[in-house]
Every structure is written in structure tokens, then in C-alpha cells.
């Protein structure tokens, strides 16, 4: 038992060392600065824009139920984060393995006294840590902007929940990108896998409910319960969609999540975080490195 605990401790410490190094490498890169600038601009700019809409009484009529509270303003900011955070995740993680392979440093990491799986976990945590720094800074400033321009702040719970869910979203894309990069022979193949996932879940997925609604002869209207239920259930199979559902529920806009109970939203969000991660760890553990 003591031996097993010592083994686990060695594995975990090894993974954390890899994560620290990976995080520093990512954060100090030029692309990290560019991604931070874009994310900051979009999220903080978006929060300002939506806060202004919140303030403009005449625009509240767009959807009287939705533009109601600072929590809802923060929820609506998620449409910007859902767009940009996956890109940040892909850009900061696609070459995590390819970089080591091309430099030959992967061999020196594989000779270290821990399992390949711990090295994979360390790589994942490092990339997640780097993206999380961007997310936390952008989100905190966005929350401050919302508070300043609407006159009241989103609740502490919702603010923390927003940040945690955004980090989970980033984790899904990092897992997908890294799982693809295990097999990828070239840097471009790994980045392509991440971008393809982003395109599928951000753009093509929107077309799915429309296509089904058309085929089934339903009314294509977000206020139609049949359509909304189907659209929400489809979203549960999409990391961006489930991110949106969870934030809608937490911000008090649960009526938007018709057909997907909160417990399933939470379950789906966790599965979207852990399944790509586990697939990546298994694939890397089986690979030659």
C-alpha cells in the first residue's frame, strides 16, 4: 500500500513538473501574446457591448426575458468565449507533442521515472494552465466591465461558474487536439484536427437542428418547444452547446435549456472534458511517444 502511494505520488509530481514547464513554454510564446490580445479584445469588448445593450431600454424589447440581469449579460458574453476559447486552446496545445518530437526532447522525457500516461497528463495540464491564465484575466476584466457599465455585478457564484465552465470548454478542445496530435506526423495535422473540431462544433452544429427541423417539418423557431427541445438535446453532444446550456441555467435563463435537465448538462460538460482527455492519455500511453 505504501509502495502504491509512493508510486502515485511520484507519478503526480512528475506530471506537475511537466505541466509547469509546458505552461511556461506556452505562456512565453509569441502566439500566446497574440491569442491573449484577441481573446481579451473579444471578451472584454463583447461584455462592454452587451452591457450597453442592457442599459439601452429600447433594446430590451429584443428579448424582454433575456436582457434582465448582469448575470444574463455575463451569460451572453459566453457566445464570444465559445467562439474564441476553442481557438486559443487549439493554438496553445497543438504542438505540445510535435515540438518535443521535432527537437528530440521527447526521448529525454520518456526516460524519466514515470509512466507515459503521467507525461501526457502533464502536457494536458500545462496547456490547460496556460489557456486558463488567459481565460481568468479576460473574464475578470469582463466581469468588472459589466459591473461598471450596468451598475451591478454578476453574482460571485455565477462569475466563478462562468470561469470554471470556460476552462472546462478549453479542456475539451485541448484534449481533442492533443489526442489527434498523438497520431499526427506533422504540426499541421494536429492543428487541423483542432480547427476541424472547432468548425464542426461551432459552425456546422448550428445547421444540424435546422436540417432536422426542415426534414421533420417542424417550425424553425427558437421559441417553438419541439424545436428548442431537439436543438438543446443536440447541443448536449457538443462542447460549445453544453457550455451554453450550463451558463443559461446558472444565469437564471433555464427556460432556454428546455429538454435537458441541469443534471444532464453538468454530466455532459464533465464528459466533454474527461473523454477527450482520457482518449489522449490512452493513445499516448500506447504510442511510441
Amino acid at each position, binding site marked *: 500500500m505504501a509502495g502504491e502511494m509512493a508510486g502515485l505520488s511520484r507519478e503526480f509530481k512528475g506530471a506537475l513538473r511537466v505541466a509547469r*514547464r509546458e505552461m511556461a513554454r506556452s505562456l512565453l510564446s509569441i502566439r500566446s501574446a497574440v491569442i491573449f490580445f484577441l481573446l481579451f479584445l473579444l471578451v472584454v469588448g463583447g461584455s462592454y457591448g452587451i452591457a450597453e445593450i442592457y442599459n439601452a431600454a429600447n433594446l430590451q424589447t429584443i428579448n424582454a426575458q433575456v436582457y434582465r440581469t448582469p448575470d444574463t449579460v455575463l451569460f451572453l458574453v459566453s457566445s464570444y468565449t465559445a467562439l474564441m476559447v476553442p481557438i486559443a486552446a487549439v493554438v496553445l496545445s497543438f504542438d505540445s507533442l510535435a515540438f518535443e518530437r521535432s527537437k528530440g526532447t521527447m526521448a529525454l522525457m*520518456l526516460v524519466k521515472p514515470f*509512466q507515459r500516461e503521467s507525461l501526457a497528463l502533464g502536457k494536458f495540464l500545462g496547456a490547460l494552465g496556460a489557456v486558463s491564465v488567459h481565460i481568468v484575466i479576460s473574464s475578470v476584466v469582463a466581469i468588472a466591465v459589466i459591473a461598471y457599465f450596468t451598475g451591478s455585478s454578476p453574482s460571485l457564484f455565477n462569475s466563478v461558474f462562468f470561469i470554471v465552465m470556460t476552462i472546462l470548454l478549453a479542456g475539451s478542445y485541448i484534449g481533442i487536439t492533443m489526442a489527434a496530435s498523438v497520431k499526427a506526423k506533422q504540426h499541421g495535422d494536429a492543428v487541423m484536427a483542432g480547427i476541424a473540431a472547432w468548425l464542426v462544433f461551432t459552425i456546422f452544429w448550428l445547421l444540424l437542428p435546422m436540417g432536422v427541423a426542415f426534414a421533420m417539418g417542424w417550425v424553425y423557431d427558437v421559441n417553438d418547444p419541439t424545436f428548442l427541445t431537439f436543438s438543446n438535446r443536440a447541443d448536449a453532444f457538443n462542447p460549445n452547446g453544453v457550455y451554453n446550456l450550463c451558463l443559461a441555467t446558472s444565469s437564471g435563463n433555464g427556460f432556454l435549456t428546455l429538454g435537458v435537465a441541469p443534471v444532464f448538462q453538468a454530466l455532459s460538460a464533465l464528459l466533454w472534458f474527461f473523454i477527450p482527455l482520457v482518449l489522449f492519455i490512452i493513445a499516448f500511453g500506447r504510442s511510441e511517444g
Partner: protein
Amino acid sequence: MNDVKEPAVSIKGLTKVFPKETRFPIMAMLSKLEGPKVVKGLDLEIPTGEVFGFLGPNGAGKSTVMTMIAGILRPTKGRIKVFGLDIAKDGPRAKERIGFAPEVPALYGEMHPVDLVAFHGSFYGLGSKAKERARDVLDRLGLTGSLDQPVGKLSYGNQKKVSLAIALVHEPDLLLLDEPTTGLDPGSVILFRDIVKDLKKKGRTVFLSSHVLTEVERMCDTVGILVQGQLKLMDRTEKVLQTVGPDGARPSGLEQVFLGLTGQGPPEALKGGAGHGG
């Protein structure tokens, strides 16, 4: 720390087949076709405390065998034990006792030598002593004057020393060195030889591959010659040099034995007339 009962390295039936390379990467990803067999049923045992020279022509499979011993590559078939620990089943515990320096230094170029060596040392439980140990090893390798610049800015020879420092920092019981003296100046080669002698005195095992046969002859207790993935010869160095050839002549050096076994040398070398090793 050394377990005198167990050999440092014990290899049984080791085979390595790489996947088939294809023209298009997507085919390589999907293909399960087997490529060349680089190592073919290798059996090898290196006693603890020996300096072993692993020789062979380019492409013989030496680096592949060494990376499999280090637990970097996985064998297709066969078993590798390091001090009695199966590298496939008990990898982390076996790897705690291994130091590895690849042929081409593989370093994070943006890090400074002390930080880099300490980073690698930190995986072996050196904790707060990692930096101090890193400085000591780099000092021993004569790199004291180059510590203030990133590793990427160092000369190839100095990068090679940093790579060696990474392998040495945790004082491993088994040191795997792939072409350790390539790119080193004569002074550094002498220093390296002293380090190997010192390690041997401490009872450590050194497993090195090299094309500098005079160095191998001087440093190694035992030599093994690998040709096309198969061990053609494995014996004590002095015994190899005493072996009488079919023509009744003794080889003039390891170089002549090597050329004879690999069939690479000029005809006069094979006949035993023009050897100059040693």
C-alpha cells in the same frame, strides 16, 4: 544502491520492427503493415560495474537497442531487465537507475544550462538540491564559463556536455551513452574518459556506443558488435584482441576486428595487414 546479484542489463529475444513508412502520412496512420526489422532476437547480458562498448556500422540498430533499454521505445518482442526490473512492467523503478544521453543533444534551447540540468534532475527526487547538483556536474564537465547563456547558444560540443550532465545529474547506476564523444574536442574526450573511469570505480555500469574504436578499446571492459540487428560478437575486450583469425594472425586492434566482422573494410584490413587500431 547497486544490486550486485542482478546484471545491470539483461536482454532476451529482443526484436524491434518499425511500422512501414508510406508515401502519404495518412496511409502511415492507418497502416498496420510492418516495416524493417531493426533488431532481430537479441540476447545480451551486461554485468553490473562494467563499461560496455556497443559497436556496429550505421543502421545496425545500436541506438534502437539503447532507446529500448532506456524505456523510450517499446520492443516488438522480447524482454529487457535493468538490475532485475522489467522495463515493460516496472518502468519507473527501473528508469530511476538509468541515465541516458542521446547521440544528438536534445535540449530545451531557451533554458540556461543549470536550470535545464536541474529540471531533469528534479524528476529523480533531488528536490532543492537539484540546482546545486546541476552546477557540480556542469563544473565537472568543464562548463562553468558557459552557464550564463541559453543552451541553444552554446557550441555543439558544449551542448553535448549539457546532455551528458543531464544523464549524470541523478548519479544513475546505469549510464546509456549513444556516441558520447562525437563533437567533443580532444581535451573534452580525455575528461570524458576520466569521468567513465571514475564511474567504474564507483561501481556504476556504463553502456556506450561509439564509432571511435580506439576509445572503446581503451575504456571498455567488454565489447559487443551488432550487425544488421544481430550480435555478431560479444566478449571481453582483451580477449577479442587476442583472438587468432583464420590466417593465424592476431588483429592489430579493435578496428580490424570490427571491419572483419562487418565486412566494411578494405581488403588489406580484412587480411590483417593494415590495421592500426589502438
